[in-house]
């Protein structure tokens, strides 16, 4: 009871914080303070549940039916990153998008930011089909308006409309799922189901849940709304969308599958394969992007794919009654949810700082920012290591869980999907490192490639402090992973009822060795740094211009570009197109070269078909000639039609 009250109070605080900016007398700080208070409440509640492990609930009547708010370890596992990122994003956004911009969207941004957080909070504690859908819809609509914050830009408008259509398609599937689930359990309240004999119904419910939630999580064929939407939103909103809102899809799959006493065979394997494909596809596309926020968005697809692999592994384990696999799969997935939330919001905050300072999202226009934005560069470096799953940062550990799980699965004879997943996970890790070497190298190293980045400077502390906190969290989670194992066990126990707490025992030794090695590595690195500092003369004496090697007077345009960096990987990227005219004349005119990357599913496949359909639908425009009289005639015809139907129905149907 108490913990659920913490959460509800937090939601109320967020709603209050979202409406406060509309009172013109009130300073932005009050609304920020209220939001942070809400975040603190929720974090306290979530941590209490994660460490204590007892679920608390609040029963009430909703529309004359029983409804329930409940916080258990699974809800808490998602509430924690939600409120962490939301709180930090609120502080960050205070400077990133000031309240009183001449454009005037600062107020709507704050309103829907708060509503988004409150809706996600309610969604995570609701145990009632209708309440869940309600919160889901508020979340989706707030996100739509947040994505369209900069709606004067046509590209942003397009991205937000695509998002809206996609999210509502997903909601339609979820509505069907909720109805079927109510049919199965006999009520809208979500309680663990009894073993039934309606195999087909169970299959449909789970299938619809996977489709609907998969749309939100951005699994492979349903991911196409994501890159544009995340690139277009204000950066702190991108951070919360990417690091929390996508995870609501994962939460939904876990929550719904946790209600069933048994999972149909093959479900886990399918999800494992889908996750593997998403991960490879996401990272491959991330590698090719020129827009750094789009790169981060594709990297989110990759990470959601990795989380999906964990979920699939856990579901396969449940179907095969293999508790060790269940623990590793679900535990790895939840751990990666936390880790991804930490480093992806850090990356988006960093990207936001760059965008704030330079005003462009094009990597090829930037470069050499390390000397102009040294603090941002320093804070982003750990994030780049974390996203590439390198030790000693956090994502390394969660991928370790997954590797252990996949190897366990291989040794127990679920070969095909696990084999695929193993290859995909290894490949993804490698490609992510390449993609983020490009991200960091092109943005921060070298010299500026255009005038855009020449006057860049570090943001002030309001934007840097949230990033610094996230860096500490990333490193801390990486080094203190052992301490999280009991909490992860509690979460797994909720997702897969009846599983013993295996992680704390099984992985204890692993993680201790890993942490020891990491600490050793860090120590060596630090010692090497000290030694290097002492042995080399002061850097001022030896500071040639960057990219000076081999060029006497380096020209900006001669610099190595991001596209040339990823060009070697072009065979992997079916959406990459080169446009170049062949030189035939003896005295050729100037020739231009262009390359562009387009999303395989969204832009190349769906885009052209939708365009054609829209052309065909234009025919119906003649129904709207603009004459008032004609519209009234339509009303009259509809009325007469209704009358006719009333009479004919009696005659025809008897």
């Amino acid at each position: 009871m108490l913990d659920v009250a913490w959460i509800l109070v937090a939601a109320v605080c967020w709603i209050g914080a979202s409406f406060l900016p509309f009172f013109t007398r009130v300073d932005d700080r009050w609304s920020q303070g209220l939001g942070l208070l809400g975040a603190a409440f929720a974090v306290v509640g979530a941590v209490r549940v994660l460490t204590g492990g007892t679920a608390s609930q609040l029963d009430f009547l909703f529309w004359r039916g029983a409804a329930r708010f409940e916080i258990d370890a699974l809800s808490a596992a998602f509430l924690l990153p939600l409120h962490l990122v939301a709180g930090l994003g609120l502080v960050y956004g205070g400077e990133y998008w000031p309240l009183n911009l001449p454009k005037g969207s600062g107020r709507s941004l704050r309103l829907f930011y708060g509503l988004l957080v409150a809706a996600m909070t309610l969604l995570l504690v609701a145990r009632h089909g209708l309440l869940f859908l309600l919160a889901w819809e508020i979340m989706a609509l707030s996100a739509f308006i947040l994505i369209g914050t900069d709606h004067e830009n046509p590209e942003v408008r397009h991205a937000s409309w695509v998002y809206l259509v996609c999210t509502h398609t997903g909601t339609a599937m979820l509505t069907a799922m909720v109805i079927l689930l109510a049919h199965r359990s006999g009520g809208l309240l979500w309680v663990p189901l009894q073993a039934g004999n309606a195999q087909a119904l169970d299959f449909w419910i789970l299938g619809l849940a996977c489709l609907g939630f998969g749309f939100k999580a951005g699994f492979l064929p349903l991911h196409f709304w994501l890159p544009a939407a995340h690139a277009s939103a204000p950066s702190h909103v991108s951070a919360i969308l990417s690091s929390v809102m996508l995870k609501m899809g994962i939460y939904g799959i876990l929550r719904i599958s946790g209600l069933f006493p048994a999972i149909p065979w093959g479900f886990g394997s399918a999800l494992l394969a889908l996750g593997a494909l998403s991960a490879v596809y996401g990272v491959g596309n991330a590698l090719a992007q020129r827009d750094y926020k789009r790169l981060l968005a594709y990297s989110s697809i990759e990470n959601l794919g990795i989380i999906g692999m964990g979920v699939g592994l856990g579901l396969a384990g449940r179907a095969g009654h293999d508790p060790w696999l269940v623990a590793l799969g679900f535990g790895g997935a939840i751990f990666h949810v936390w880790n991804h939330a930490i480093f992806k919001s850090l990356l988006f905050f960093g990207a936001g700082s760059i965008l704030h300072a330079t005003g462009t999202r094009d990597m090829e226009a930037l470069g050499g920012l390390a000397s102009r934005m040294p603090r941002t560069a320093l804070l982003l470096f750990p994030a780049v290591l974390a996203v590439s799953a390198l030790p000693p940062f956090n994502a390394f550990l969660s991928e370790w869980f997954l590797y252990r799980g996949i190897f366990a699965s291989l040794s127990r004879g679920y070969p095909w999907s696990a084999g695929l997943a193993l290859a995909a996970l290894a490949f993804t890790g490698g490609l992510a490192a390449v993609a983020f070497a490009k991200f960091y190298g092109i943005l921060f190293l070298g010299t500026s490639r255009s005038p855009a980045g020449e006057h860049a400077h570090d943001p002030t502390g309001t934007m840097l402090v949230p990033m610094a906190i996230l860096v500490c969290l990333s490193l801390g989670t990486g080094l203190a992973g052992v301490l999280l194992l009991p909490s992860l066990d509690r979460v797994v126990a909720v997702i897969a009822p009846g599983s013993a707490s295996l992680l704390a025992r099984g992985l204890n030794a692993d993680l201790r060795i890993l942490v020891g090695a990491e600490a050793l590595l860090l120590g060596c690195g630090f010692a090497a740094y000290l030694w290097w500092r002492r042995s080399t003369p002061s850097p001022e004496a030896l500071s040639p211009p960057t990219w000076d090697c081999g060029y006497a007077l380096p020209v900006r345009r001669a610099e190595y570009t991001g596209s040339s960096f990823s060009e070697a990987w072009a065979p992997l990227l079916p959406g990459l197109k080169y446009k170049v005219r062949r030189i035939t004349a003896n005295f050729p005119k100037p020739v231009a070269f262009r390359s562009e990357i387009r999303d395989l599913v969204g832009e190349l496949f769906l885009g052209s078909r939708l365009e054609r359909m829209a052309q065909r639908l234009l025919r119906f425009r003649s129904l709207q000639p603009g004459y008032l009289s004609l519209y009234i005639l339509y009303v009259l015809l509809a009325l007469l039609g209704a009358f006719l139907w009333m009479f004919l129905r009696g005659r025809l149907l008897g």
Partner: protein
Amino acid sequence: MSPDFLIALTLISNFMLVATSRVNKAIQIVVVQGVLLGLIPLAMGLGKYFHILLVVLAALVVKGWLIPFLLRRAIREVHIQREVDPYIGYTVSLMLCALGTGLSLILAHMLPLKAGTPVVLLVPAALATLFTGFLVLVSRRKALTQVVGYLVLENGIYLFGLLLVEEMPLLVETGILLDLFVGVFVMGIVINHIRNAFDSTDTRHLAELKD
């Protein structure tokens, strides 16, 4: 005076409205129709209920004085031409109106109504008036005549509402009247704006606004 007589007069006023070619006359007819309808509850012997008396009074004031006042002022200020200017000719309109009235008689016969409906002609007249309102709305070009059509349409609804007049709360009736008043008021403003934008009150010009 029996209510059937008043309802018959209402039906005749429908025909007159469709056949008239002058805007002024159309307004006069609609005022007469409004007053006739306002009197029907009294003719039905419902004058003993206080709230119905109130409704009658309000209907007479709004339909007999306020709305014609607004419409005439609109004519004066906007300099609307006297001609009704229909899409469909008067003869055809008349025939359509007759057809609609005939159909309403049949329809009303087939409607599953509560037993013991007070007045025989009430339902067909309501449907016929509704239909006439639609006809005027669809077939007349000027914004002002469309307002007239809207008023007739509302009269049809009012007639239908008389079926339930004993149970109908005061609030609903006053709500309808208020709705009507606001409708006419807004239409007056719209008429003015159409005139300002296009130098004419022909609703055909509104087609330029579609995207």
